[in-house]
């Protein structure tokens, strides 16, 4: 029997950033059903679409390089997968490319984010300078065993800080993956906790997912 795993990259933006991960899985299942693509269902008592997401995206965050794997039962060209899926996807979710998976999701090590802080530029700069100079950034992180304190310093790199008319644009690199994962919101909460600085309004966009060698996840 023909079964082939295909990895589909998609973006999630606009109103769609408010679709939670759980809701997105359901929405994708329905989109595949509407698309009529020959996807593989699990064979148990309650068959469901086999679908896995490489790295869940937080609610409220834009994602430009999200990916999911499904299994196809017939040969379908990558272009056709994209066009049929896009016809069935809700506003704000768009399939970008499809192809054979190259890396395993467990190879994911880093994710890069654009963080737009709307604030008074000088206040933001000052706070960030203090933040960067810290040796340790102890932060309350929720784990399966309740809240615990972790040092997020090694999980976080500020790649660049750019001034804009209404605030600052940061490029953040956060540890990502199954084992250790840093949500940029948590880093921003720590920034507020330590320096007292809080932006008026923050938008976050994930624009790259990387392996240890800083190659794009493929």
């Amino acid at each position, binding site marked *: 029997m023909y079964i082939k795993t295909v990895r589909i990259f998609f973006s999630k933006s606009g109103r769609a950033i408010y679709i939670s991960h759980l809701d997105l899985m359901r929405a994708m299942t329905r989109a595949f059903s509407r698309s009529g693509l020959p996807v593989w269902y699990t064979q148990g008592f309650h068959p469901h679409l086999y679908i896995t997401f490489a790295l869940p995206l937080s609610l409220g965050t834009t994602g430009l390089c999200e990916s999911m794997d499904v299994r196809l039962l017939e040969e379908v060209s990558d272009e056709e997968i994209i066009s049929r899926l896009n016809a069935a996807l*809700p*506003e704000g979710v768009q399939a970008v490319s499809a192809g054979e998976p190259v890396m395993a999701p467990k190879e994911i090590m880093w994710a890069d984010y654009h963080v737009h802080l709307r604030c008074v530029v000088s206040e933001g700069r000052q706070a960030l300078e203090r933040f960067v100079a810290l040796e340790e950034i102890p932060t309350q992180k929720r784990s399966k065993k309740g809240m615990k304190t972790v040092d997020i310093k090694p999980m976080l790199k500020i790649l660049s800080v750019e001034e804009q008319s209404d605030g600052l644009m940061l490029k953040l690199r956060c540890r990502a993956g199954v084992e250790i994962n840093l949500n940029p919101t948590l880093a921003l909460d720590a920034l507020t906790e330590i320096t007292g600085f809080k932006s008026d*309004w923050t938008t976050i966009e994930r624009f790259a997912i990387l392996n240890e060698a800083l190659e794009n996840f493929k």
Partner: protein
Amino acid sequence: MTLDQLDLLLSQVQKPARYTAGEMGAVVKTLTPGMLRYAFCFPDLYEVGMSHLGMKILYGHANRRDDVWCERVFSPDADMQTAMEEMGVPLFALESLDPVKDFDLIGFTLQYEMCYTEVLNLLNLAGLAIRAKDRTDPFPLVVVGGPCASNPEPLADFIDLVSLGEGEEVSDELFDLCIQAKKEGWDKPEVLRRAAQIPGIYVPSLYDVTYNEDGTICTITPREGAPAVVSKRVITDLDSVYYPENFIVPFLDIVHDRAVVELFRGCNRGCRFCQAGFLYRPIREKSFETVAKDAKNLIESTGYDEIGLSSLSTSDYCGLEPLLDSLLDWTEEKHVNLSLPSLRIDNFSESLMEKVTRVRKSGLTFAPEAGTQRLRDVINKNITEQNVTDTCRTAFLGGYTAVKLYFMMGLPTETLDDIKGIADLAQKVVDLYYSMPERPKGKSVSVNISVACFVPKPYTPFEFEPQDSMEALREKQKYLLSCVRSRKISVSYHDSATSVAEAALARGDRRLCQVVEGAFLRGSRLDGWDDHFKPLAWQEAFEEAGLDPDFYARRRRSYDEVFPWDHLDYGVTKAFFIREHQKAMQAATTPSCFAGCNGCGAQRLTGGVCKCI
């Protein structure tokens, strides 16, 4: 509102997807001059409103017109309402994010009485005056529909129009009237006067109500050419009426998250407590081909993995088994489940069970409603203890080990013997299980009794009956628990604190407007939710208005009393309800419509006999 503003709001609330729209199937139009903007409001949370079939039908029905854009509005949850109030954002419609106050028509569907304060809350959040007379511009025009529109009097002061009966039948006429009114610049009195001439549209402000000294209604008099009696609108042919080929598919996990097809409207049974069973008469079926086609369309367009069959009594649908066969042919292959709610005890056959089992093996739920044969005869449930045990035997033979039984408490003529009968019936089901050598091996049985409080409703034979007191109901609950001896039986009941307010509103007159407003001003909203309901607010509102809830809820009404809804005609006649009430008091039953016409009067509205196969 801009998307930026929405972002700011949404960053402060739980479940933002309630407020973002953008779902598959949501209708977004480009505004054109003269386009009628219609805000369809469901006065409850997104998850509840989005589960409602009527809204899906009417949304699609309105949007099939190029000159109408119908959008959805749901209640914001407490956190969102606070955020909106703090930011000064008025109530907005989901698709366009435009303020509701800028719309031409605002429609509320009234599915239950406890949504009334929420209607006021939404009007207020929209930035509109809650009293109709204070909204002097003709638009937005506020119209209500749905089952509670059958007695809209407790909302009479707040709303402009009431649509009686089935919306698909009347909507177009109302849209046309609004479009013409806008074009020709009518003032509000003229809009109301003309609207009252549309059959099925009731304009409360065109009726004067006078009262007797004892507080009952003396007269209801129309003014300005409004009809003395307004009759509900009825679709004659369900096979040709509009049905959506597409549903909005929500992202959130809503209450009923599936494609739904309608089997029939109305009910042949005539259970005397059931308002829906009378309101939606006469019974009209969809043909088996139409239902099968609707189901296929919806699954293809939505991608849902479940179809629900909707009606008041699924197993009474004439072509149920062939329909199931034809659906099961393709649903299994497509990984689509079927859900069959509202199965009756007296016609649950072995072959039907096999089909249900092929669909999904969870628990089975049946509704004997009362514990003794005498009381089941009073309420005209028309099932016997034999029916219950036969059905449970069938279910147990089919491998089921869990049965849920629904009952009501506080029914007319009820005694403690009837309460004990509930426990006895459940015990008989348990005993039956253990008496069966063929029962599923090594498994224990579980019988779950669920008990609700009976609330007398208008347009039923029990509209004359007083509601049981809260104290009596609590006593009966305690007594029921003391009667249950087996650990295989579990009892759950809704200690319905809302049921007194619900009973008062259900049969209330327009003096209750002051109470609804008083409760709203004391912070009442979303009263149907236990964590929102404020009993004290209602109590104070009644006191302030100088009205006694017991006058509405707990008074026996005479047959010749003028009821607040007597000028609204839903087909079934008061004479029939009186006849049925008299029979109920003698514990005499009335057979199903399928056994012969009982002369309820509903057929008048379709100009002929009930269309049942």
